[in-house]
C-alpha cells in the first residue's frame, strides 16, 4: 500500500535535515504504529506524505499503491486515498463542518471521476457516523473545529476519515487529549474501518491506544529514522522502560 524508501527531508526555509532516511512499508490491510521521542520527525513524516508546504524532499521516495505521491498536490493525494488525522486539527471560522465535509467528499469523488453524493445520502451517512462517534448535530453545524474541545477535534478527525473512506489512513497522535471513553469511541471508529483493502499508520506515544487497536507492526522513530521495528510487544517495552534502552541498543 504505502512504500517509503530512504526518505530524506529538510526544511525549505532553513538548512535543517529532519528526516534522515526513512524506510517503511505498510501492506494493504495492515496497521502499523510509530512511536518515538518528541521531535524525532513523526509529524514531519505525516506532513510530507500529505503534501504540506515548507518541506523539501532531498532524497528517497514515497509511493501509494505504486504511484509516486510526492509529486502530487495535497488534494490529489487525498483523492488517491491518503488521509491524515492531524495532531493539531485546524479551526476554520465561517466554514460549517457539514458544508466542509460535503465539499470534500464530492471533490474527491469528482477527482476520481465518480458521481457526486446527493444531499440526502450525505446527510444520512454523516448522521449515522456522527452518532457512532457521539458527535451531536450541533457540532456538525458549527464552523470546522471552532470552539471544539481537544477531544471533540480528534473525534471530528475520525468522523472525516469515516466519511472520506481513504485507503491509507495516517493518524498523528489522535489519542492525545482523549479521555478514556473518547479513546474507546475513537478506537472503535478505527476498528470499524479496518479491512483488507485499507491500511493505517498510527503515530502515538502511548501503549493504551494499541490495547484497543492491535498493531501488526510497531516502529520506533528516532532522529529522523526508523531505528527499530517489531511486534506489539515493542510498544509494551517502550511503555515500561522508555526509549533509553532501545536507543542505546541501536546506537
Amino acid at each position, binding site marked *: 500500500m504505502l512504500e517509503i524508501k530512504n526518505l530524506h527531508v529538510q526544511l525549505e526555509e532553513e538548512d535543517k535535515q529532519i528526516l534522515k532516511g526513512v524506510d517503511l512499508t505498510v501492506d494493504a490491510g495492515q496497521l502499523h504504529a510509530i512511536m518515538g521521542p518528541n521531535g524525532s520527525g513523526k509529524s514531519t513524516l505525516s506532513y510530507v506524505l500529505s*503534501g504540506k508546504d515548507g518541506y523539501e524532499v532531498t532524497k528517497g521516495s514515497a509511493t501509494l499503491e505504486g504511484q509516486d505521491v510526492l509529486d502530487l498536490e*495535497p*488534494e490529489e493525494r487525498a483523492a488517491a486515498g491518503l488521509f491524515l488525522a492531524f495532531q493539531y*486539527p485546524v479551526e*476554520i471560522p*465561517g466554514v460549517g463542518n457539514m458544508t466542509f465535509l460535503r*465539499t470534500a467528499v464530492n*471533490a*474527491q469523488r469528482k477527482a476520481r471521476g465518480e458521481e457526486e453524493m446527493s444531499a440526502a445520502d450525505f446527510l444520512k451517512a454523516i448522521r449515522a457516523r456522527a452518532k457512532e462517534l457521539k458527535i451531536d448535530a450541533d457540532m456538525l453545524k458549527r464552523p*470546522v473545529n471552532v470552539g471544539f474541545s481537544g477531544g471533540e477535534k480528534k473525534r471530528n478527525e475520525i468522523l472525516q476519515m469515516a466519511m472520506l473512506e481513504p485507503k491509507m489512513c495516517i493518524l498523528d497522535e489522535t489519542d492525545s487529549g482523549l479521555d478514556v471513553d473518547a479513546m474507546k469511541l475513537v478506537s472503535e471508529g478505527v476498528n470499524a474501518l479496518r479491512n483488507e483493502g485499507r491500511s493505517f499508520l498510527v503515530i502515538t506515544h502511548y501503549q493504551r491506544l494499541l490495547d484497543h487497536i492491535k498493531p501488526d507492526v510497531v516502529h520506533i522513530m528516532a532522529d529522523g529514522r526508523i531505528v527499530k521495528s517489531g511486534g506489539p510487544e515493542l510498544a509494551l517495552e517502550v511503555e515500561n522502560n522508555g526509549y533509553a534502552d532501545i536507543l542505546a541498543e541501536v546506537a
Partner: protein
Amino acid sequence: MALPEQKQSQIDERLSDLTLPEGGVWSSAARADALDRLRAMGLPVRRDEYWRFTDPRGLVSSDAPAAKVLVTDEAPIFEIINALKIVFVDGVFDADQSDDLTLEAVDIQRLSDAASTDIHWAKDIYGVLEARGQSPVQRPLAALNTAFATDGILIHVTGKVSKPINLIYLHQSETSDAILHHCIKLDAGADVTVLENGPAAARFNKVMEVEVADGAAFHHVRTQGRDHERSAATHMFTRLGTESTFKSFTLTVNGVLTRNECVIELTGDDAVAHVAGAAVGDGDFHHDDTVFVTHDAVNCESRQVFKKVLRNGATGVFQGKILVKEGAQKTDGYQISQSLLLDGDSQFLAKPELEIYADDVACSHGSTSGAIDEDALFYLRSRGVPSSEAQDLLTLAFLAEALDEIEDEDIAAVLLERLDGWLSRRRAT
C-alpha cells in the same frame, strides 16, 4: 470663515457650470440653504483629514470621468425578489420601466414632482438630516447633492409594507453624471425594505435621508454595480426614534472609486442600528466606507461590520466612528473592519475611532488585515478540496460575519450567488 484660496477657486469653478433647479417654496429654500453650506465648506481635497485615504478628485471634478458600460448577460440582481420596481437610467427616473408607484401603506412620489409644490412633508427631511450630518465632520458632496439634485424618490411609509421597494440604477451613457436624492419617512411602527442596485452612471452622487420614527423598522440592502470604471459618492443620513430599527447592508463588486458614507444618529432610547458591507475588488478598485454613529439616547445598540476582499492592487478604506454623547448610558457599540488581501499588492487603510462621554457603556472595535490562512488552506486541501475551491471557501468564510447581517434569507442567497460569480470569474483569469 473664508476658504483657503485654492478651495475658493475650486468651488467657484465647480459652481460656475451648475445652476440651482427651479422649484416651489420648500425645495427652493432647502436648495439655497444647501448651496450656502457648500460654499462655506468648499469641496474636499486630499489634504483634508477626512479624505486622507481617498483621493476625491474624480468625485469633485466638473466633468465626470468617463466609464464604459459593462455588458453582461447576468439577470438584474433582485429580479427574483417580488418588489415594487423604480428604475432610473443614468440618474433619470424612467416611468416606462418602473412599476406603478402605488403600494399599500406607502406614498411614493418623484422628487421632481414634489419639488414644484409649495408645501410637502419632505420639507422636514430633505437637506435637514444632511445638514445635521455636517458636523462635527463636513460632507460637502452631500450638500452639493441637496442643492442640485432634481430627481429622486420620496417615500412616506405609514404602516408595514408588504413587499420591498427596489430602486434600480441603470447605466447607459459613458459620460453620465447622475445626482439622485431620496427621502424616506417612516411613521411610528412602520416597516419597509428598500433595495438599491446597479451601477447608476459613469459618476453617481446619491443621498438618502431616512427618518425612522418610534418603533419603526427600516431595512436596506444595496448592491453597487460591477462596471469597473464607474465612480460614486453616496451618503445615507438617518435619525432613529425610540425602539426603532435601522439595518443596512451593501455589497460592492468592483468600481474604480466608491465612497459610501453612512451617518447614523440614535436619538430615541432602545434604538438599534446595524450597518454592514462586503466589498470585493480586483485591480483598479478603491472602496471607502466611512461611517459615523452618534449615540444620543439610552440603551441603544449599534453595529458596524465591514469586510473587504482585495486583490491585484485594489485598495480598501474604512473610517468608522462611534460617538457616545453624555448621558447615552447603556450604549452597546460594536465595530469591526477587516480585509483579506489576496496578494501583496493590495492594501487596506483603516481608522477606527471611539469617542465616549458616558461612563456606563460597552463599546468595542477591531480592525485587521491579513492573507488567506495557509494552515486552513492546507487542511481543506488535505481533505481533497482543490486549492482554488478551498481559497473561495475561505474567502466566503471571511465575508460571512458581514453577510450574516442580511436578515432576509432570499436576498442573502442572491448576494451570495453574485459573490460566487465574482470568485469564479477570478478563478478563470
